[in-house]
């Protein structure tokens, strides 16, 4: 198989400004390599990530959505990431009940010091999405 034939998914990655975005930057300054599938979008706090945004992203053709935030207890805004976690669990259930693949969603805590973890999560999640293949629901459902 030629290199070009490997499916490069499109993965939307929400990063909170304070921990995860800094962690992803650290992966860069450390020159850690991970797939170009990861498309970062910065938000101030992971709790800003409205489940509807994730759903819309998914229906717009992203093959996977990764939400990252500070570790629990380390949120820059006290407890935002607890809300993120709760909403994420709920969204997974909504995905399941709509017949969408909830395996295409992932939540991960990445601190500003965890460049390595970010690169690892990005690589593993890309691999996972490669196994699932292209997002079949894209452009089929309108919201």
């Amino acid at each position, binding site marked *: 198989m030629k290199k070009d034939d490997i499916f490069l998914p499109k993965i939307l990655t929400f990063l909170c400004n304070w921990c995860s975005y800094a962690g*992803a930057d650290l992966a*860069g300054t450390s020159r850690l390599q991970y797939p170009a599938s990861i*498309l970062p979008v910065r938000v*101030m*706090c992971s709790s*800003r990530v409205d489940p509807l945004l994730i759903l819309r992203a998914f229906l*717009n053709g*992203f093959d996977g959505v990764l939400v990252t935030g500070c570790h629990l207890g380390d949120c820059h805004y006290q407890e935002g990431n607890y809300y993120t976690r709760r909403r994420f669990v709920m969204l997974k259930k909504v995905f399941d009940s709509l017949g969408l693949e909830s395996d295409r969603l992932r939540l991960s805590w990445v601190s500003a010091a965890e460049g390595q973890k970010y690169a690892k999560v990005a690589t593993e999640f890309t691999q996972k999405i490669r196994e699932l293949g292209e997002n079949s629901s894209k452009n089929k459902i309108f919201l």
Partner: protein
Amino acid sequence: MNRKIGVYICECGPNIAEKIDIDKVIEAVTSLNDIVTVERYKLLCSEAGKNYLTEQIKKHSLTHLVVAACSPRDHQLTFMEVCENAKINPYLFQLANIREQCAWVTDNKEEATKKAIRLTKAAIARVRCHSPLEKKEIESNPDILIIGGGIAGIEASLQLAHSNRKIYLVEKNSFLGGLIKNFEKKYPEMQPCSASILQKIETIKKISNIKIFTDSEVQEILGFFGNFEVKVKNKKEKDIESFNVGAVVFATGSSLFDINKNPQYGYGKFDNVLTSLEFEQMNLSKKIVLKNNKTPKSVAIIYCVGRTDKGYCSEICCMYSIKFVRYLKDNIPDIKIVNFYSDLCIPGKSHQKFYEQTQGENIDFIRAENIDITKKGEQLNISYDDETNRKKNCIVDMVILSPALEPSVDAAKLAEFTGVPLGDGDFFAEEHEKLNPVSTSTQGVFIAGCAQGPKSISDTIIQAEAVTGKILSSLIPGKKIEPEVKVSQISESFCIGCKTCLDICSYGAITFDEMNKISVVNEVICRGCGNCVAACPSGAITLKHFTFNQIYEELKEAVQ
């Protein structure tokens, strides 16, 4: 609106230029709507680069700016300043991070280039939805309210008064000094407490810009950082005084764990069972005697009383209990002392030495569990399990209990009406345990001393000094306060008054307008996390600069 967007791609020396085919990026975005110019430049953050950008903005009369370069954590502010200088609103700018999160992490140049195109296009799509935002400035009051006249409150008052700040020091008792007034000596140097603390109290009384309220309590604190309105009530005279301050320090200290919750120690039931505080007072009065006025021949000190109930180590009990051994030996040289501990906590550069020097004849340290105290004639019998789990007994004349520290009762009251949250052990919660240990989630409210958690006199003073530094560097006379610009906004017409956002906000920035039955954001308190936006069931809340539309347009373009 007629947008004129300029897109500038930074080569960042070889950093981006070698990893990304910049010409392809230029080609990909040039024909997009509203794009006036797309250029590459060797180093945009340099002085020459900034001047170049300024000239470009003017030359093309740009309304919006997109820079594809490094992380916004590096140079977002740099380019926002450029915008300001070139007279375009700094929020009509977007930085695409094609270095840290693209060039540096993607080996394959073709893939890196494709990703850079996506990120740049996404930034362009986002900037189209940006709205200009204006900085706000609010006058601030440099005065400070300090609640609690113990060592933390005294130290903070003195330090702040040295910088010519007006201080309002509120103490519930009729005297200043707090718990420390009961102590004869401080460990580990065993110097008298009174000299140092009395001197500070005398100094404080002489300083004209410290206004002391004794027998008083704070009844109300309203407002926000720089502008708090305070009401203080004198408990005796019943009169209420109101004044304004810019910052508040909670230095409410601690009290002892209620030993009545642990009846196995026989406190209150048997004579000659004392709390550590009662023993300090007895020692201070120079009369260490039993109830029958005889001198005790043997004393047991029981450490960690209430530790299991509280679920935390109170940090100072081991050290002050060892200090009691010194007190006892100084007063009654041939006394026998048995220390029952569960874990000795003696960290720090001088505490181990203090402990080692306190050992000697007739001083035992026993690691014990399941302690139970009963009366045996005139004496007290302590039954316990030793380290090998064997039941043993020990008979002594007197027992001193070293109970856990818990927050003062005032903490809960203050927390309730100020909304500053309590954390572990019901002590005031720090904004961040490691990174912001003396700030709280309410901007302008600080915590010092045992109000934050059990701690020694030296740690209390360190915290009081830390609070002083925080206040002096953030609340500067004559300097206006710039609240966060990217705050939440609630649409009057969409809000259904469900109050979901009120519960969620960690900062108490949202209040309910009973008249119109809608929630209202106090823009001065809001920190702009956006949690309420995601929670609002009617989509009535918008976070400025992170609106649904802005984020959605950004991600939609990235996936094209």
